[in-house]
């Protein structure tokens, strides 16, 4: 009897263990079911490469939003990569343990600040600065890139610290014993060894930037145009969904789910790439 119960429990746990995969599949299926019809109707090429988003006239093409997401993500990466790498290298390699012990949790703690608060900061602090020094109304690619850059700092920093710390200490000893300075050791031994982990962290940061919604809506301006300067307002894929979801019906709503499909695929590709790269490091 006991043995039978044990087996039942094991089976129950096995099913539980598949919950995340089941949820992932459910998410994919439901979004596909809602969004695919309109993509097929418009045509994949038109949907992705066309520039007209006119829900009232029944034109659904999302190229401007793809460009918007691309610009803002690239800007955010440019802004946060040097800072987060500096942070990670300093905290993992140069700081005394005491400073490191305080600063790393501080940075992780700050990752908990809600995204709406970051967006609000952009509105009240960056908008006036941009208006005064660069002109324009305020909401633009630049503002969104700066805020998103700050938002993904903790993600990239803490993953990079973890992969730097995972490099065996003997590597450093070998290099230091050969007479190299600390920085030479970091540059030529530690960083190359931790490279794939750091890249995985950066990719996850990109994923976070692409998927961010509320903060972006508050500061990117949301205009459906293809930008030609960083002071132009843009609309991202995520913003497109969130802005119109509350009142969209029929084909319009389907088109928003179709935008979700594109977003979901991009994020999955990023996740899988990060996963493969990180696994390569473990295997090594």
């Amino acid at each position, binding site marked *: 009897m*006991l043995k039978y119960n044990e087996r039942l429990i*094991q089976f*129950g*746990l096995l099913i*539980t*263990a*598949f*919950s*995340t*995969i089941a949820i*992932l599949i459910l*998410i994919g299926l*439901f*979004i596909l079911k*809602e969004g695919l019809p309109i993509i097929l109707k418009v045509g994949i090429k038109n949907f992705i490469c066309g520039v007209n988003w006119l829900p009232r006239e029944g034109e659904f093409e999302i190229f401007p939003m793809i460009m918007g997401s691309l610009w803002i993500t690239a800007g955010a990466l440019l802004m946060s990569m*040097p*800072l*987060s790498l*500096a*942070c990670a290298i*300093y*905290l993992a390699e*140069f700081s005394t343990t005491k400073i490191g012990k305080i*600063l790393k*949790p*501080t*940075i*992780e703690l*700050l990752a*908990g*600040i*809600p995204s*709406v608060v*970051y967006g*609000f*900061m952009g509105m009240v602090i960056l908008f006036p600065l941009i208006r005064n020094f660069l002109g324009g109304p305020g909401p633009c690619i630049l503002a969104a890139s700066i805020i998103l850059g*700050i938002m993904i*700092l*903790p993600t990239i920093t803490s993953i990079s610290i973890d992969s730097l710390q995972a490099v065996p200490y003997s590597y450093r000893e070998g290099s230091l014993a050969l007479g190299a*300075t*600390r*920085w*030479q050791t970091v540059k030529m031994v530690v960083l190359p060894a931790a490279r794939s982990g750091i890249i995985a962290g950066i990719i996850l940061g990109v*994923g976070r930037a*692409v*998927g961010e*919604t*509320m903060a972006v*809506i508050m500061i990117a301006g949301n205009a459906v145009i293809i930008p030609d300067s960083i002071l132009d307002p843009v609309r991202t894929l995520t913003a497109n*969904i*969130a802005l119109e*979801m*509350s009142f969209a019906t029929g084909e319009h709503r389907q088109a928003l*789910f179709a935008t*979700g499909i594109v*977003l*979901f695929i991009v994020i*999955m590709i990023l*996740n899988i790439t990060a*996963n493969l790269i990180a696994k390569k490091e473990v295997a090594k």
Partner: protein
Amino acid sequence: MKIKPVFTERIVKKILFVGTVFTVLILLFIIFYVLKNGLAVIDLEFLLSSPKELGRAGGIFPCIIGTIILPLVAIIIATPLGVGTAIYLTEYTREGKLTRIIRFGTECLAGVPSIIFGLFGFVLFVVYLGFGWSILSGGLTLAFMILPTIIRTSEEAIKSVPYSYREVGLSLGGTKWQTITRIVLPGALPGIVTGVILGIGRSIGETAAVIFTAGSSLRIPTSLFDSSRTMAVHFYILAREGISMENAYGTAAILIIAILMINLSAYWIMYRFMAKFS
């Protein structure tokens, strides 16, 4: 001219230090700025009265209730699923193809943006299952979102319980399940609690997934099928529609204080837990 390596070292170290301090200062500045502007607005009336004129005046009491109930529903659903998964991964399988697939699924789910969870929760719970904009729909959506966090921390916690604990349980004649429930899980409890608390922290700050599933009603909810507005959603609406900057700051300040306290307590429990086993 060649620069001496020792000199380069000194310069690099300075640059890295400045970068680090700059980063931490940006993040601390955000917190202080919100608190400085927000704390002045907060008093007992702000906390305990309902909003008037869409939030232009009055307090945020219904939103505080919503902010407490939604994460509560989420963890009630996500904790058994997450801990069950963690038990299976650590106690019932060896590392292999199966665990790799499950871990991969967990990592991917963790990376799904909240707006996608919002869309999904909207079609499945609000429309398809007919729950409407409600605490139940929002709670279920949040549960799915925080599941990876709970799985990962529980797994770490269960793994860090020494193997000898299990041997003692089994040698006393306990079955595997008895050993797990009476010896391993109690030992891992602080770590599991940390994961649950981090999940609560993440739910409280969430906006995109909640606004499309739990709605934004300003009434005090009386059942699981009522719509409710969390503080994060309230803050977003106040700030974006320019309803009241003052009340937006007040709401944001409470939100940030709540999240920092929650995350701090999670880290504190984890720290004590890790100290015990190492």
